[in-house]
């Protein structure tokens, strides 16, 4: 087995009296697609939020690429190699698709405001390089033709894909996808599954939250199941599907086929 | 009152003098149009002072035009500077380059005056201010900022500061004086020139309070702590009235005093008569109603509102120019020469004659006291 890219060790997250995550431990291996599932309110998005530094965990530890993420500023976590998409699309609507990706790509720029202002060679070089890379990413994700359109004017499906391209713009080692298929029709979901695989094949590690079971089971190498903030399963898709605790957790909570 | 009668006579004489040249009405076609300008705050927060001064100027001109029907028509260009030096600096070049204008009443505020002066000096436009009292404008030691075009009717802070202190402590056996300024250049200037004249042991303290203040309780507490029996406010009437009122209402029984910025007929409408009873004020001039009730009545009739702060000064300033016009002056150079050599009576009967730097020579201060809700003349401050 290859080594872990990120490890959550006994992570607990409390909001006042509410425990959103309770003693959660799992890891994501390099170049793996890990599906994170669970009924509504199980704490899936909270996992994303504690990894990306939106919340500081109450106890436990998160190790990314050999280093703890405790107290690291959010943008620095991104710089270390974690990028995410949002369940409810949060693109920068007044920017073009290309600019959205380039903004994320700026994370690793060496040139800043001053060299940009005076047009130092390094700034020009990086600008040129990132522009090309951003366009490549848009092409890669299949929305290259929209690069000059304002994000807010794009069709819904394109916006969803742009979210992924933008996150990839930050050159993450670990890509966090929060319900990327929400609102997709079956054909689009099939396409998305292929895209996610393609992303992994390009060398990224993917942590995927998704409601659509068939999609998760199809693309994931491994699945972690959360229920009421606790990990109840962590295994291959097939075994998880047969796990009685998982079935129980989903029982009475009919899965919406969205 | 004997004194008052005397002043009325003088006022009548001054009015007559202004219209001396009124000969038999000639044909309208022969009327010569002369333009003067007014500069002061006419809009915005400071408009109160400027609008009152403008009314005084327009009143004097209305009288003059009526008397000189067919001979002269005097027009006024109203230059609103909002009391702001920045606004003044763009208005002044416009006024200065308008060759029709041969004299300027204003600017109302010292700051605006200083900002405008380079332009007026350059274009040789004579100006007479009814209210810019900052000492440095006419102080040769400060660099002749105003020379030669600047003149003013009121005495400077240098004269008024000590006089105000003298009036406020008159008849008080062991005065403990607390002085409050309004943080304006006017108020701070008065205090600065008053300080040297305060004998040791008579000062109870100072406070400096923004002219936007509405609640005076902290200042009042300081006054009480200092056990002051004389309180002087150097600022304008809109703040003086509430301050005095709150001070009295808190139980203070000592003397209240203020300078010419407080001397406005509006002042006494801003607080109950019982509260303002006995307030002492200084000014270089006298309110119109005190000069002659008929004069004030005529003012109200012609201008549609009561006269305000610096009304008499504005009329005096305007009358100097009008006297020149009546003598046939029609250029700036001639007007400046005329103003420099002018000697005539003010509304109150005193002599207006400018010294080389533009101050009224030997300007004395009058004292006033509020009685029964009216500002009464109380003799010159000696």
């Amino acid at each position: 087995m290859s080594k872990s890219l990120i490890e959550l060790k006994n992570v607990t997250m409390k909001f006042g009296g509410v425990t959103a995550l309770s003693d959660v431990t799992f890891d994501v291996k390099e170049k793996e697609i890990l599906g994170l599932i669970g009924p509504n309110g199980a704490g899936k998005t909270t996992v994303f939020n504690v990894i990306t530094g939106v919340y500081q965990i109450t106890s436990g530890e998160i190790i990314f690429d050999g280093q703890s993420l405790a107290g690291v500023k959010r943008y620095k976590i991104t710089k270390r190699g974690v990028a995410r998409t949002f369940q409810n699309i949060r693109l920068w609507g007044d920017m073009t698709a290309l600019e959205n990706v380039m903004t994320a790509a700026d994370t690793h720029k060496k040139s800043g405001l001053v060299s940009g202002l005076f047009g130092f060679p390094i700034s020009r070089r990086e600008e040129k390089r990132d522009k090309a890379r951003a366009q490549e990413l848009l092409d890669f994700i299949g929305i290259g033709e929209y690069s000059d359109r304002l994000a807010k004017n794009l069709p819904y499906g394109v916006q969803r894909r742009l979210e992924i391209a933008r996150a990839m713009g930050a050159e993450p080692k670990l890509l966090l996808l929060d319900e990327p298929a929400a609102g997709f029709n079956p054909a689009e979901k099939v396409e998305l599954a292929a895209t996610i695989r393609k992303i992994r094949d390009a060398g990224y590690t993917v942590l995927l939250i998704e409601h659509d079971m068939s999609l998760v089971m199809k693309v994931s190498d491994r699945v972690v199941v959360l229920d009421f903030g606790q990990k109840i399963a962590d295994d291959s898709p097939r075994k998880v599907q047969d796990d009685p605790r998982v079935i129980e957790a989903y029982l009475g909570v009919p899965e919406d086929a969205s | 009152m004997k004194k008052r009668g005397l002043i009325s006579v003088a006022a009548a004489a001054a009015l007559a003098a202004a219209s001396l040249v009124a000969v038999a009405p000639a044909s309208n076609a022969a009327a010569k149009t002369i333009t003067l300008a007014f500069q002061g705050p006419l809009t915005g927060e400071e408009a109160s002072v400027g609008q009152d001064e403008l009314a005084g100027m327009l009143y004097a001109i209305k009288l003059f035009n009526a008397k000189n029907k067919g001979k002269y028509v005097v027009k006024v260009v109203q230059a609103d500077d909002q009391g702001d030096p920045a606004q003044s600096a763009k208005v002044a070049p416009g006024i200065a380059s308008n060759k029709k204008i041969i004299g300027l009443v204003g600017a109302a505020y010292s700051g605006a005056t200083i900002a405008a002066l380079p332009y007026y000096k350059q274009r040789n436009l004579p100006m007479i201010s009814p209210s810019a009292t900052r000492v440095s404008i006419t102080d040769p030691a400060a660099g002749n900022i105003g020379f030669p075009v600047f003149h003013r009717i009121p005495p400077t802070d240098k004269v008024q500061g000590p006089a105000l202190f003298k009036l406020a402590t008159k008849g008080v056996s062991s005065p403990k004086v607390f002085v409050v300024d309004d943080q304006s250049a006017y108020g701070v200037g008065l205090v600065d020139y008053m300080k040297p004249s305060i004998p040791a042991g008579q000062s109870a303290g100072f406070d400096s309070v923004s002219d936007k203040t509405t609640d005076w309780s902290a200042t009042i507490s300081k006054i009480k702590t200092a056990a002051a029996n004389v309180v002087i406010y150097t600022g304008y009437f809109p703040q003086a009235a509430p301050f005095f009122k709150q001070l009295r209402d808190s139980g203070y029984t000592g003397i209240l005093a203020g300078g010419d910025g407080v001397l406005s007929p509006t002042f006494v409408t801003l607080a109950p008569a019982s509260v303002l009873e006995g307030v002492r004020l200084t000014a270089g001039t006298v309110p119109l109603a005190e000069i002659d009730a008929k004069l004030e009545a005529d003012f109200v009739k012609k201008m549609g509102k009561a006269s305000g702060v610096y009304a008499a000064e504005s009329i005096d300033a305007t009358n100097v120019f009008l006297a020149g016009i009546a003598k046939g002056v029609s250029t700036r150079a001639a007007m400046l020469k005329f103003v420099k050599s002018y000697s005539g009576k003010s509304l109150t009967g005193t002599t207006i004659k400018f010294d080389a730097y533009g101050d009224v020579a030997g300007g004395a201060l009058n004292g006033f006291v509020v009685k029964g809700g009216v500002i009464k003349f109380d003799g010159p401050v000696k």
Partner: protein
Amino acid sequence: MIGNFLDQFWSLTFGGLSLGFIYILIALGYTMVYGVLRMINFANSEIFMVGTFATIIIIRDLFKFTQVSEYATGFRLWLILGTALIFAMLVSGILSMLVEMVAYRRLRRMNSGVLAPLISAIGVSMVLSESVRILTDSRPVASPRAMEKKFLGQFFDAGIRIDNTIIVISALVLFAILITFVNKTRMGKAIRAVSMNPNAARLMGINIDGVISATFLVGGLMTGAAGFFYTLKYENTSAFIGFELGIAAFTAAILGGIGNIKGAFYGGLALGLLETYASFFLGTQWKAVTVFIVLVLVLYTKPNGLFGEALTQTRA
């Protein structure tokens, strides 16, 4: 200095409290509107200004008081004060609704963001204050004194004056009525719903326009009451009186936690006292500086304001 301060402590405190209660009422105007619209209602200061003039119209023009009149007593006094309070509240409340219609409504429908309404409200503010200035010949105006400013008693050498007492008690009553209105009535609940989540409220069938109008009305009523109390206490006003008081009240609202009715209460009191103490200790000229430094420190340590709860709770 400390000794002097202790000597003057209670009279400073009483002065600060009654000023604080006036701040509270104006701050409510800001905070209610902020609660539903997330916007600073810049015109609120002029609504206050109009409230002071409305009071003067009743006392001076309807009841014909002058600066040399005898003070009113007994039933007539309460009639005068009551009429003036109600008139000031109504005038300000209605004006506040009109301001919303003119300055905000169209922009809100166009979903225009925060700044366009801000500038529009500043424009309304200029129109109101300049109109009043022209109507008053640019001069300050005073309210004749209808009620003798009697001392009701002494408290540690500090006189308790009747007008301050009336202000504190009436403001408390108004505040209690407002809290009841917001918590108990249908409209009050609707206002809270809109402030918590406008979209959800709309889906629940709440008439957003109506609720916003009502919020402006209530905020205006409170601000108008402040205008009355202000006039009762200070008896002077001018076309530009609102500006400084408006900023002070807005500061109070933020100090307490903006958008939060209770925050306006604590913020107003805290600011009234702070201003008075700071003026005494450091000199009146440093009052504003002190207030802002304290404000920064407070917001630094308590990002939701001095007494503010989490943003979504008890929001108007």
